[in-house]
């Protein structure tokens, strides 16, 4: 893809959108959950504990320790992955990881919805009820991640083709 081509622009926009979503998701989980409350170590701890309750309500993990681990790690993984995508460095790898993450979320949401569990999703902070809207939103995010991944690989392939030296013309009697 050449710089400035529509494909390249779409890839950049997709990458930034994906990064923005992940960063927002991390922010929503970590921010103080009460309006007017200031950021502090204690407020982040409470926010993580609230997210742990969301994770627990999915009834996927078997021990409280696993729940706590996921609740503590996931927001920071989203933060790191979002920042990585924003830089555009090693985009093929970051986009593949983002796709796997969103595929995991989508599978979980579908399973939970089919089981009829009446819970809070917690995807973008506590208080977010799980419903058909979540299926559409998470499905769309997964589609975006896949599109960015495909775009990243195609972009890399085209760059390689454009950068490859032209084939030397065959010469007769060279030897």
């Amino acid at each position, binding site marked *: 893809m050449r710089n400035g081509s529509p494909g390249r622009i779409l890839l950049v926009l997709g990458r930034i959108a994906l990064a923005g979503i992940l960063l927002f998701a991390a922010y929503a989980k970590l921010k103080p959950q009460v309006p007017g409350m200031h950021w502090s170590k*204690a407020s982040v701890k409470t926010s993580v*504990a609230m997210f742990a*309750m969301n994770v627990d309500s999915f009834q996927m993990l078997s021990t409280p320790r696993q729940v706590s681990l996921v609740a503590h790690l996931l927001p920071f993984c989203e933060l790191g992955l979002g920042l990585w995508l924003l830089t555009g460095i090693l985009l093929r790898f970051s986009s593949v990881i983002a796709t796997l993450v969103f595929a995991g979320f989508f599978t979980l949401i579908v399973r939970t919805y089919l089981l009829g*569990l*009446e*819970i809070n999703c917690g995807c973008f902070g506590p208080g977010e*009820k799980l419903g058909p809207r979540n299926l559409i939103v998470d499905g769309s995010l997964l589609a975006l991640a896949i599109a960015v991944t495909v775009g990243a690989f195609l972009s890399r392939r085209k760059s390689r083709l454009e950068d490859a030296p032209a084939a030397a013309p065959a010469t007769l009697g060279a030897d």
Partner: protein
Amino acid sequence: MEVFSDYQCPSCGSLYEQTLRPMINDYVASGKVYLVHRDFPLPMHAYGYEAARWVNAAARIGKFEEAEAALYDNQKAWSIDGSMEKYVAGAMNAADFKRVQKLMVGCGIEVKPPTGPDNPSGCPLDANIEADKQLGNQVPVKATPTFITSYKGQKYPAASGVISWPVMKQYFDSLLAQ
């Protein structure tokens, strides 16, 4: 913590057995948590409203906890045919149960719940249940169990579903540490 629940809701039963019971024995007993039960019987549970009436009647003579425990412990049994009376009876002595029965006069299963403020049911116990439902609608409660925590004058976002006690305990600890 306010818990909006329906006595016939299986998830509410699970929350009670797995989480609220240890919480009551631990954090409520030690004064760390003040637990408030709010009735929110769901229309799809045929006996949920009636169960709430029985527990409200028991609460009026100071036997709320006993009646609540009896109904949740035997939820599967009475949910089939609405035979909750015998379980409430088994949770207290004969004299107390007679007082509860007296309060339940005019509140049998044949008495339909109120459909609005202009259409009361005639059962005096329904006023408390309807008041709780009003509070729940303001949250809004979309499913049971739903619980809301308030701490130092701040109300935290509502959460719902079955949460294990160790996870909920961590949440309380994080609040109490503030």
